[in-house]
């Protein structure tokens, strides 16, 4: 991990399946839903998908909201930068890297409190999301909006592919989903329809003969 990378935040609480970190950057946007982030656990790096952002209130915010009828834009920005509680971002662990090999498995240990969290580069995202074993981890998780998260993550993975490879990547991911959700036609269709919109937007696809 390159220590020159900007730290997005630090771990507040964690478990084997995921963790929540406090986003503390005042001048940048928090990572998007479905983005891949990483943190160090011992000699390995744990990768996870952002699946929730929670903006908590604090006493100051409550006071201002209660007392002021009108707020200037300058004051709102000031309040956002000086807030007393961080934005809580929840992450689902989908894999880890150890000895240069990426495993799409739950990490052996969860990250410790206050471990720094980093955003993954496009190259890292491509390496981590190349295979689709993590789909099952996402689909089986009851705490996250698994269908939405999977669509966001696949879109993220497709966006990291080299030129011309986004559509094959999407087709590969879709076919993997047909295997995993063979028993749940409606759920499969719901995910694929969301992906279809993104697929069509990438660029027009040559006609494939029916049959």
């Amino acid at each position, binding site marked *: 991990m390159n220590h020159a990378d900007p730290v997005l935040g630090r771990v507040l609480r964690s478990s084997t399946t995921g963790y929540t970190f406090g986003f503390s950057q005042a001048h940048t946007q928090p990572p998007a839903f479905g983005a891949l982030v990483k943190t160090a656990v011992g000699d390995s790096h744990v990768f996870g998908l952002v699946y929730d952002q929670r903006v908590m209130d604090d006493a100051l915010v409550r006071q201002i909201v209660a007392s002021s009828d009108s707020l200037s834009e300058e004051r709102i920005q000031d309040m956002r930068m000086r807030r007393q509680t961080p934005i809580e971002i929840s992450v689902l662990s989908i894999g880890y890297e150890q000895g240069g090999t990426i495993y799409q498995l739950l990490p052996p240990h969860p990250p410790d409190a206050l471990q720094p969290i980093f955003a993954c580069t496009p190259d890292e995202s491509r390496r981590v999301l190349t295979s689709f074993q993590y789909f099952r981890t996402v689909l089986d998780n009851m705490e996250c909006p698994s269908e939405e998260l999977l669509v966001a993550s696949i879109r993220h993975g497709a966006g990291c592919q080299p030129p011309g490879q986004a559509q094959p990547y999407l087709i*590969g991911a879709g076919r993997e989903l047909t295997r995993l959700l063979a028993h749940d036609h409606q759920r499969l269709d719901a995910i694929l329809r969301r992906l*279809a919109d993104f697929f069509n937007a990438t660029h027009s696809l*040559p006609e494939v003969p029916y049959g």
Partner: protein
Amino acid sequence: MDDTNSADAFLHALRAQPPGEDLSARLGQVVAGSLSKGLEVRLDADRSLEDLAVGRYVVMRTNNRLFFGMITDVALDNTNPAFEKTPPDFSNPFLRQIYLGNSVFGRIHISPMLMLDETDIAAGQPVPQPVKTIPGHYTPVATASAEEVAYVFGPEGEHVDEAGAKAHYFHIGDPLDMENVKITLNLERMVERSSGVFGKSGTGKTFLSRLLLAGIIQNNVAVNLIFDMHNEYGWEGSTEHHIQRKVKGLQQLFPGKVAIFTLDMSSSRRRGANPDYEVKISYDQIEPEDIEMLSGVMNLSEAQIGAMYVLRDRMGKAWLRTFLDDGALEAYEGLKGLAKELDQPPQTLAALRRKLDRLRRFDFISEERVDDSVSRILDYLQREHHVVLEFGRHGSDLRAYLLIANYLTRRIHARYVKLKEASFADPSYEPVPLVITIEEAHKFLDPAVASETIFGTIARELRKYNVTLMVVDQRPSGIDSEVMSQIGTRVTLALDSEDDIRAVFMGVRGASELRQVLAGLDTQGQALILGHAVPMPVVVQTRRYDSEFYRQMGFIEGETLQERAAQDIEELGGKRPKRLL
């Protein structure tokens, strides 16, 4: 890069393939099945069901064996029955690419037929063996290559095995959807037992029979006696296409090896043939057994048949001539007196006489003593000349056809039996294997008569006396089941009737699966061959009976013949002739 190709390349990279597997030929993988019921194969996502037809050969390669099978059914399948109730949106190209071949996919049913040992293949001596087991789960299935088909059927031509036995493999056609592959059948094995060519009217039975007969003649595997009902084998025949064209008969292809005998000299000559012999029989040569087989077409009752035997016992050889001659009956004081003397009901004799009187219309039956046609035919056969008996205008009369075929076959078979028995003491008497070709075979082999007629006997005897049948028929269901089960090689063109299809597959393993194959045959030019002469059932696009075939049979076209003759004459220092025929 094309997006579809990129997707496939991407997916192939994801899919772990066994090293060395040829993906271009791969169709799918075995997912279920049994030896008795066949194998279920799920098609790969990039394979279209429409490109696969029943009857096509596939191979399944395991570590030790190469399994050979035939596609006997194709089906649509899915991973979830909900896809049938709520089909996905196939107008969306993305969804179509995802679902097709994955959630909804093609499935083929394969009948395993043969297996070959990989070590034998590696040693260059593949020995096809019947399947006794099946390939395991997820064994890759691929279309058979030309080389693999050749392992099974053997290359065209003459082969001598280690024991010194000769076998002639005759190119009968090509497998479906495969180019440059020849399907051959073992002619020795074909003539070893009776064979059958079946198909509904207009499917090309005669063409295929002529093809097989040409193979037998060219390779000197047996001699043929062909009862040519419609005058199509000996001299020119015509195609059944909407544009009729003439095709060459066997005598034209093999001059000097094929003799044409005729029952109707004027008809044969009108058609341009030059028959070698006109067959005539006399009334005194006809026996009740010759007529008994016509009981169906002549509407003879049991009592009338019995009366014929009584007549023969009383009057001897001349029974028929005497019975039909008014003058001769005078000696018995008319029909009533004869009935009284024979202790037969007068009505029976009167009806019998009325029916037998119809034989007078056949001008090949003579009042006078005639040459012995049977000896003449046997003489040709023993000199290894093939005999085509043309019926001329009598071909349209089933009674004439049945009478003559039965008459000649009974006597020829009897002589063969004697010769064969003599050959046990002196091998020089060993008769040349004989194949008798009959059309409208169900008339000879009807369950009511098959047990008693000579044709039923020949079919049941197998090759005991070196005589076998080639039955050509459009109604195999009319053939006695016991006889049908003895038909070693069955060449089947398209059939419609369920009864006929059932009859063709009588006693065949995996018949229910092969039915689908038969049902899928084109109405012309495609045949399913199964039985003794082929190592496994095979669907062929039959070889064309055209000038190329003539050339391969050794026929030289007119112009070429003229050029060759002129060249020979020049080489011999002779004069160029004014005109050559």
